[in-house]
């Protein structure tokens, strides 16, 4: 079997989890717990094996032939419009499917333990498998439309899984919010596709990317920015980030898989996949980079004052996605993908660690009620600390290499402003992660401590959903092996993952850069300047260490003696601004969705109900009244009918006698 034959079978990879989803949706209840979970996990592992095979098949080809469109079928054929449902196996998609299925399989395994005892256990795994299938279609699609199908599929699964515990109103609302916010971005994606089709006549990546250079500057910029609008929605960038923190209502494995490791990176993937449009446009890249940098800083500062263990990580995810867009914006696409993979490792690790903590603390999510957990959950603590070092950018952990690769390339590209913003965000990152680690794993035990209101805080953050019950004091315990094993594997990956792309071009250690090179042909090449990078890395590590030291000094004993948060104390009124995420959420609700809702209400009530329905119903009512009137004519009395016949006959006779002359 040649490599081409194997690559023709790329469609099998999304089909594997799709089969699992169908089987679990139909027979899930009968399969039951925990076999449903094992089935889903096994299928994910199979998909991972298939991805590995595909990777090696692709590798056996010469570099410039590593783009293979697999067998498929014609999905849509309408006049000149034709879309084939085919899978594109190239270095980019093979990289994506490797970490999607790999991290996905680990999180599936973890979820068997985490979802233990849930009444909808099998349903959960059906959704997870469906998500994996959609994500793989998204990544492997050979045209914008196939990708869009996966794009909507993951959006649907995100909705289903965020509101998985829909008995809780907040979860149902959060799912709806995620779905609706994503619609705004999807609208941009769709307009971009319409533009591409009307200008280039095809939605296939191969055709569109090859012909993008013929477009006018304004068209190509419009397409790029509209695609980016889709990416903003899916990847939770400002101002469409509002759904991601709320999406933490979903079960923690969902947060780890969908809202940290895979789905939210789809926006970055889209930008890289359609990078030709961004390359040809003069300004789109700048917009992407600055939105990314702004988001990175914005979310990192907000994360500093969050008290919910998962909300910290949610804002952290938004911030890290901002780095990826920063990289994509300056044309450092391979750095963006590198950081995406490293982020998948350490953020999945952190989320799963947080889930393990929540599990051990009996659904307590408020960090102010934690503390000293390292004694009770050693594996979780150690792996979480690895994740913390990775995200904080401490050498030699993975986050250091990927984040500094982005910042260094921004600097070398000449975007010193972007570098500065990214560096400040990195300091904030190191600070909030240190705060989290010390609040959760060090300091004193505060499991039953009442939460003292902060004097400086403007508004209290919402109470966690499962507030600890005081008469049922939490007794933290380590999670079962099924949950800690993925933690350990991810911790190893977060430590050593960087070997796929070390920044030493001359030693040929930049495997990922060279692997992705055929896909990114045409993208600006940012030269490597080891000396500059070394200095920048030193500065970054020094600043990160400084932030860690500062945070450690403040949080050494957890909260202060009065039970207050030292940062909030020091920030004063500004802490309230941060806790409310700069009031962006409230502002959006008031100034965008408020008028939009009012307008929609006008359309629905004023136009639709009163005008259109009014006209339709009016005609109906008119005829009904007419009929009601005419009904009275039928009296049922024979003599009335006879009279009517008689009168009619007379009238006809009179009529005929006036017309007919005998």
């Amino acid at each position, binding site marked *: 079997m040649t490599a081409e034959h194997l690559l023709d079978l790329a469609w099998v990879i999304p089909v594997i989890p799709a089969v699992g989803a169908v089987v679990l949706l139909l027979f899930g209840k009968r399969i039951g717990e925990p076999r449903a979970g094992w089935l889903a996990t096994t299928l994910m592992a199979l998909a991972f094996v298939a991805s590995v095979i595909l990777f090696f098949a692709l590798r056996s080809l010469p570099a410039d032939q590593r783009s293979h469109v697999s067998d498929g079928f014609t999905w849509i054929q309408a006049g000149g419009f034709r879309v084939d449902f085919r899978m594109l196996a190239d270095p980019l998609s093979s990289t994506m499917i490797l970490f999607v299925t790999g991290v996905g399989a680990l999180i599936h395994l973890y979820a068997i333990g985490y979802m233990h005892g849930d009444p909808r256990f099998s349903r959960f795994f059906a959704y997870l498998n469906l998500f994996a299938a959609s994500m793989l279609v998204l990544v492997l699609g050979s045209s914008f439309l196939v990708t869009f199908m996966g794009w909507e599929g993951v959006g649907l699964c995100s909705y289903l899984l965020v509101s998985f515990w829909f008995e809780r109103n907040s979860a149902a609302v959060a799912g709806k919010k995620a779905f609706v916010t994503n619609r705004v971005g999807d609208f941009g994606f769709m307009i971009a596709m319409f533009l591409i089709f009307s200008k280039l006549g095809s939605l296939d990546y191969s055709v569109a990317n090859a012909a993008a250079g013929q477009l006018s500057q304004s068209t190509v910029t419009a397409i790029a920015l509209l695609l980016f609008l889709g990416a903003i929605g899916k990847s939770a960038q400002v101002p469409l980030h509002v759904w991601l923190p709320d999406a933490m209502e979903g079960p923690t494995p969902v947060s780890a898989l969908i809202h940290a490791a895979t789905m939210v990176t789809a926006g970055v993937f889209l930008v890289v996949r359609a990078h030709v449009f961004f390359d040809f446009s003069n300004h789109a890249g700048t917009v992407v980079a600055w939105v990314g940098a702004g988001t990175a800083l914005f979310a990192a500062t907000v994360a500093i004052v969050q008290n919910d263990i998962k909300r910290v990580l949610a804002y952290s995810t938004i911030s890290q996605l901002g780095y990826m867009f920063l990289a994509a914006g300056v044309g450092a696409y391979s750095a963006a993908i590198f950081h995406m993979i490293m982020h998948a490792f350490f953020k999945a690790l952190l989320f799963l660690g947080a889930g393990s903590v929540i599990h051990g603390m009996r659904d307590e999510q408020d960090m102010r009620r934690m503390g000293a957990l390292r004694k009770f959950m050693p594996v979780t603590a150690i792996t979480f600390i690895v994740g913390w070092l990775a995200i904080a950018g401490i050498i030699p952990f993975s986050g250091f290499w990927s984040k500094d690769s982005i910042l260094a390339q921004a600097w070398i590209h000449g975007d010193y402003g972007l570098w500065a913003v990214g560096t400040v965000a990195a300091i904030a990152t190191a600070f909030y992660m240190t705060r989290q680690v010390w609040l959760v794993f060090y300091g004193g035990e505060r499991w039953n401590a009442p939460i003292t209101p902060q004097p400086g805080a403007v508004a209290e953050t919402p109470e966690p959903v499962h507030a600890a019950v005081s008469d049922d004091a939490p007794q933290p315990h380590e999670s079962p092996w099924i949950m800690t094993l993925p933690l350990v594997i991810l911790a190893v990956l977060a430590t050593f993952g960087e070997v796929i792309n070390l920044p030493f071009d001359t030693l040929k250690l930049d495997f990922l850069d060279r692997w992705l090179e055929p896909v990114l042909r045409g993208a600006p090449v940012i030269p490597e300047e080891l000396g500059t990078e070394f200095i920048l890395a030193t500065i970054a590590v020094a600043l990160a260490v400084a932030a860690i030291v500062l945070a450690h000094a403040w949080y050494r004993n957890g909260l202060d003696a009065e039970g207050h948060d030292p940062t909030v104390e020091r920030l004063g009124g500004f802490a309230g601004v941060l806790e409310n995420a700069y009031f962006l959420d409230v502002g959006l609700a008031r100034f965008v969705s408020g008028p939009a809702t009012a307008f929609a209400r006008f359309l629905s009530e004023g136009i639709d109900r009163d005008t259109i329905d009014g006209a339709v119903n009016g005609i109906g009512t008119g005829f009904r009244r007419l009929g009601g009137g005419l009904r009275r004519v039928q009296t049922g009395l024979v*003599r009335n009918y006879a009279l009517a016949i008689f009168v009619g006959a007379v009238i006809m006779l009179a009529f005929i006698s006036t017309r007919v002359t005998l």
Partner: protein
Amino acid sequence: MIGAATVTPTYYLTLAAALFTIGAVGLLVRRNTLVMFMCIELMLNAANLTFVSFAKALDDISGQVIVFFTLVVAAAEVAVGLAIIVAIFRRRQDVTADDVNALEG
């Protein structure tokens, strides 16, 4: 001289018109179904009389032929109509037309 007066078709037609009018008015004003029925017969026979008169006056046999058809139809109509009236009477002990209004819209 009275005896010399000839009976012209006008006489027959006038008589037929009078019979028809009596039948029509009777149909409209009477409530007893049997009487209404007889009025209808009256109208039918007025029509027959008209046919016969014209057949004689115009020397055309087809008018007389039509009368036979009318008689047959009238006989059939009587058979059905009387059956209905008997059925109504059995049900209601009464054949007043204005009381039978179950088909009111």
